[in-house]
């Protein structure tokens, strides 16, 4: 009896959902999308005035030793280990920065806020952050600004007025284009594919999926999105979900997008263990170390990612520049150590560069 009800409810929900999906791909957010041109013509960058915040009467930190804390979304995953390494490298290089990384063990907005709050109290000079939620983190960052602390974000942005600068690893539409183009190149214009993401609430992933959906509609209209599944930041769950997708769609599934540095290697693993190397393409965001085995075996042709070590490195340099007063609103570029001049976009963002596509030929050169 109870079971029948459950099944009925289950089927009902299934129907509801399949109708609700017409709008876009599951897992995308509802913000406006801005797909790039199919041929890669760069969008005209409209110059925007500086829209970041400013610390209230900060002390003169020019050239002085400063303490900086880096609070990423969560600690204990490869990606943020890499950014953390970049930050430490830059700090060592600069010599006048005392930087450390600390944060929640789960990508939890509340815990991240608590960490930030505690570090504000303890009196750091600068904060680097990667937001779990752009809006939720804003009040505590504003508080930091009020205390005269320099605040710079990287990887995941907050609302612009809650921080001074944000180091953007790559624009959402750029990533979307790189991913979709890569997959289209591998599976052709009419292949079916699925997406493995972390959770639907993770802002970056949701943004990417939305942009990918928009870009695919514009430039690869015949590619067939099958479905999106959630897999947390959990290796085993990602593997299981990807395996189920492979089993479910059989030959209809030509490709899988991995939206996180956890989901992509796990999806590649699922394809490998299913013996479908070469039949199912895996394209996604991932760190090179985790992907090396699959790329070298030829199971995965291309991995899209910026260099997270560089991202952390750049963020540290930007923070130093802000503290020194050498980077101010209205600037068009900033010098970031070995990375050279980085361009300012969207008013208060600093672009790391175009996303990097790792392949068999170059992946061996990276170690992070």
């Amino acid at each position: 009896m109870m079971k029948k009800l459950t099944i009925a409810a289950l089927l009902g929900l299934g129907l509801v959902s399949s109708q609700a999906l017409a709008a876009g791909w599951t897992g995308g957010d509802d913000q406006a999308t801005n797909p790039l041109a199919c041929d890669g013509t760069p969008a005209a960058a409209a110059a925007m005035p500086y829209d970041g915040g400013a610390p209230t009467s900060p002390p003169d930190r020019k050239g002085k030793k400063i303490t900086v804390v880096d609070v990423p979304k969560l600690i204990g995953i490869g990606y943020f280990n890499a950014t953390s390494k970049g930050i430490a490298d830059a700090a060592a290089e600069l010599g006048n920065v005392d930087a450390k990384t600390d944060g929640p063990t789960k990508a939890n907005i509340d815990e991240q806020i608590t960490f930030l709050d505690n570090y504000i109290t303890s009196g750091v000079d600068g904060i680097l952050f990667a937001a779990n939620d752009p809006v939720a983190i804003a009040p505590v960052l504003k508080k930091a600004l009020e205390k005269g602390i320099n605040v710079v974000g990287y990887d995941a942005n907050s609302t612009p007025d809650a921080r001074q600068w944000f180091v953007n690893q790559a624009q959402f539409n750029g990533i979307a284009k790189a991913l979709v183009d890569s997959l289209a190149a591998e599976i052709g214009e009419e292949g079916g594919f699925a997406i493995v993401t972390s959770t639907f609430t993770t802002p970056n992933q949701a943004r990417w999926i939305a942009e990918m959906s928009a870009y695919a509609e514009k430039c690869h209209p015949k590619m067939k999105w099958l479905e999106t599944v959630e897999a947390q930041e959990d290796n085993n769950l990602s593997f299981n979900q990807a395996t189920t997708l492979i089993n479910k769609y059989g030959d209809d599934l030509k490709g899988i997008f991995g939206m996180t540095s956890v989901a992509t290697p796990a999806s590649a693993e699922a394809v490998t263990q299913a013996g479908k190397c070469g039949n199912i393409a895996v394209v996604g965001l991932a760190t090179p170390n985790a992907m090396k085995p699959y790329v070298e075996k030829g199971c995965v042709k291309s991995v899209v990612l910026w260099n997270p070590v560089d991202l952390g490195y750049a963020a540290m340099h930007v923070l130093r520049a802000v503290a020194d007063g050498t980077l101010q609103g209205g600037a068009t570029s900033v010098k970031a150590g070995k990375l050279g001049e980085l361009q300012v976009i969207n008013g208060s963002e600093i672009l790391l560069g175009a996303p990097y596509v790792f392949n068999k030929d170059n992946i061996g050169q990276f170690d992070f």
Partner: protein
Amino acid sequence: MTLSRLLRHETILAVLTVIALIVLASLSDKFFTTENLLNQGRLMSEVGLVALAMTFVIVTGGIDLSVGSILGLTAILLGVFWKNLGLPLPAAIALAMLCGTFAGWVNGYIITRFNVPALIATLATLALYRGLAEGISQARSVRGYPEWFFFFGQGEVLGVPFQLWLLGIATVIAAVVLGLTPFGRATYAIGANETAARFSGIRVNATKLWIYSAAGFLSALAAVVFVSRVTTTRSDMGTGLELDVITGVVLGGTSIFGGRGTIIGTVLGLILIQALKNGLALSGVKGDGTIVVIGLVLIGAILVGALFDKNRGG
């Protein structure tokens, strides 16, 4: 005698808390400042509100694992009622809190009507309520609340954070209800011997329904404060809240088997945990180290309490 018996664990805990405060204050001069302490109070308010209800739940010998999910569900409903259904914000708040309270009531109903152990019932609703939050929101955040709404989570009254007043008032009410009223007596009686309580004319099921509904209500209240504090609504809000809450309550000396526990103990437990989290962070201990310390303190405090109990005979 009875009082001293009940207060025994609380005394140990109070001593422990004071020691912790002194040590932490000596480790960092930023710790023992009014501003920091008030700010810490703000941060512990949501856990604190839920912990008050959880104390009642655990004293009856039950447990509620679904509080974090209720918080998430209420937050989502608040946003959906306001933005998607276009209700005025106050009405959306009221309606969402009603739903949160109802979710708590459903827990109580399943537990009392079908005799399902609380751990199992709320394990199921933990998944169910979180699932509803995700399904209803379609994982979309709701943002852009009017400025006045942020008062609940960010505002101050007489220099003290608003939610700390809320927590203070709720604490006093909870302490009075548990310690001094027939309802409190019934709560203890149910936890110590449910059958005997029923045979004594205590309305066992009604009492439990009230308590689980109250857990839903306070989780919902915490949700409103939380949404107001972080200015956005997400379906993953409150994930893992239940463990923080239960740790605080148990550290506060409430017996997981029921029949024993006080609000004072819970408050001390919460303060100790928050002080450790904050104080250790300020003295340069990283978050992972703090987690270890909290685990050790939990086991240690209960262990010391148990040893004291044994020595006094019983």
